[in-house]
């Protein structure tokens, strides 16, 4: 990605525009959360890693409040900020409370990665981390009164938010009877559902009025490593508060990415363009639009948006997309 010089870690807000619905039909807007909140937890919110197991990270001098990083309403993520795992971000478990020195990964994240296999260096000169508050459905999308989203007693007449959670698409809406966010179908209370930094969100708007949501926070200050499933769907966040393009996203450089002269065998990226879904594949040289085969390297990926990655292979596991920070920070 092109480098832009920035003298400090910028903090502020970005506006996320949600396209108006059709009144009787829905319009989709793809969103992601490229700004990060400032951690307010007690103890070292940035520090050095002194121990690692398959699913835990320790800092013997952390001084965290036991359970303070494991509150369901205010979940946390941990990002590795140096070493070979630089840019990897994990959601922390709320089911297994943290101790004064150790945090445990959320089971979904732990199921995808064995921390001991990442080459994390521990000890006095070990790799570093930062704690980042995770946004939730309610912290981002609020209530009808606070953000203007359409709630209802039933999902069919409400706006809804769609996430790809542990390999499955799930939809959530604001139920005006229970006055909280609910999972469509099972009606599970979901106010505290965390939205991972690397994931996107699909907002399905019904009323014929647009919405604007403000996202507050700091820009990411490290490179990024995001997981892409080797087979099937990944709903990938754009990741940065800057516009990018298909080409500069670097998705085509993901290890194991299948580029091909034929769209029927190539891996595919799907994104909203001009109000509908477009699908694109890489032929080894350029991104091309399926069907028209139009070169699409410069197709915009707006800030705070995302893409659906469709990998056709049958290989299990995940590959790591590495993105270099697209601006220079001089602290």
């Amino acid at each position: 990605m092109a480098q832009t010089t920035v003298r400090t870690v910028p903090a502020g807000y970005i506006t996320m525009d949600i396209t108006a619905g059709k009144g009787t039909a829905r319009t989709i807007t793809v969103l992601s959360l490229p700004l990060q909140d400032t951690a307010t937890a007690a103890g070292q919110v940035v520090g050095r890693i002194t121990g690692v197991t398959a699913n835990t990270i320790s800092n013997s001098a952390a001084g965290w409040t036991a359970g303070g990083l494991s509150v369901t309403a205010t979940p946390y993520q941990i990002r590795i900020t140096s070493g070979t795992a630089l840019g990897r971000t994990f959601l922390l478990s709320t089911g297994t409370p943290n101790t004064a020195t150790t945090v445990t990964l959320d089971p979904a994240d732990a199921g995808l990665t064995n921390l001991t296999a990442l080459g994390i260096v521990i000890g006095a000169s070990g790799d570093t981390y930062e704690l980042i508050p995770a946004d939730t459905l309610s912290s981002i999308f609020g209530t009808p009164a606070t953000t203007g989203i359409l709630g209802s007693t039933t999902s069919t007449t409400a706006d809804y938010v769609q996430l790809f959670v542990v390999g499955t698409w799930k939809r959530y809406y604001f139920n005006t009877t229970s006055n909280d966010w609910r999972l469509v179908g099972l009606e599970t209370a979901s106010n505290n559902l965390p939205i991972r930094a690397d994931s996107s969100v699909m907002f399905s708007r019904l009323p014929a009025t647009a919405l604007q949501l403000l996202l507050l926070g700091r820009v990411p200050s490290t490179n990024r490593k995001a997981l892409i499933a080797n087979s099937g769907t990944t709903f990938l966040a754009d990741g940065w508060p800057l516009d990018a393009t298909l080409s500069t996203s670097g998705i085509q450089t993901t290890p194991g990415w299948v580029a091909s002269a034929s769209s029927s065998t190539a891996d595919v990226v799907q994104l909203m363009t001009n109000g509908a879904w477009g699908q694109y594949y890489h032929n080894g040289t350029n991104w091309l639009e399926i069907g028209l085969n139009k070169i699409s390297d410069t197709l915009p990926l707006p800030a705070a948006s995302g893409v659906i990655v469709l990998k056709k292979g049958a290989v299990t596991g995940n590959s790591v997309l590495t993105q270099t920070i697209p601006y220079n920070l001089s602290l």
Partner: protein
Amino acid sequence: MIFLSCFKTKKKRPALLVSIVGVLLGTSLLAVELTGFGTPGDFTMISSTFATNTPGPTEYQIIGNDGGDTILGGLSGLKDITGEVDALYFTGTFSGLPPDSAFQIQLVDSFGNLRTYEGLWNSFANGTPSTVTLNFLNQTGSFVLTNVSSIRLRTAGSGFESINLSMDRLEAVAAIPEPATAIPLGLGLLGLLALEISRRQRVQRIMAKV
């Protein structure tokens, strides 16, 4: 008859009656048929991500979902939509409950420029043939109206809803008259029709006497 000569729809049907009814209902007098889908060679699939693509003698069936499926097909020669640029009439039969999302049909000229129209799936009836209006949205480049070579259908939904559509006909039409204009015009056409019938009856009576 002036109003017969300007009726450009190429599909065989009772053109006069359809035009009058169409005007009374607020639809366009003029139309250019882009494809009948079912006619062999009238719509040739170039690429599709729909799970099922079934050409038939009178229709072309697609089955998939509304979360990204798309189909691109070539037309039988270049179509000229000059003067018929404001909307598309899309006729087909939707099986099942249509999604509550939008979709687009893009006309593609022979230079790759796109002209995009947007409609709503839930404008289709469930299980019975219906015609849905897609309104013009935008275009890319200098779209050449005389050179429409292919069409592309794009979905815009969440992927949770199924699509099972038998596509029957796609027409390009001019601006849809306002009801205040359409009703008097339709009544005028009915008057012309009555005059024509009366004239033919007089001719027949005279011929009978001869």
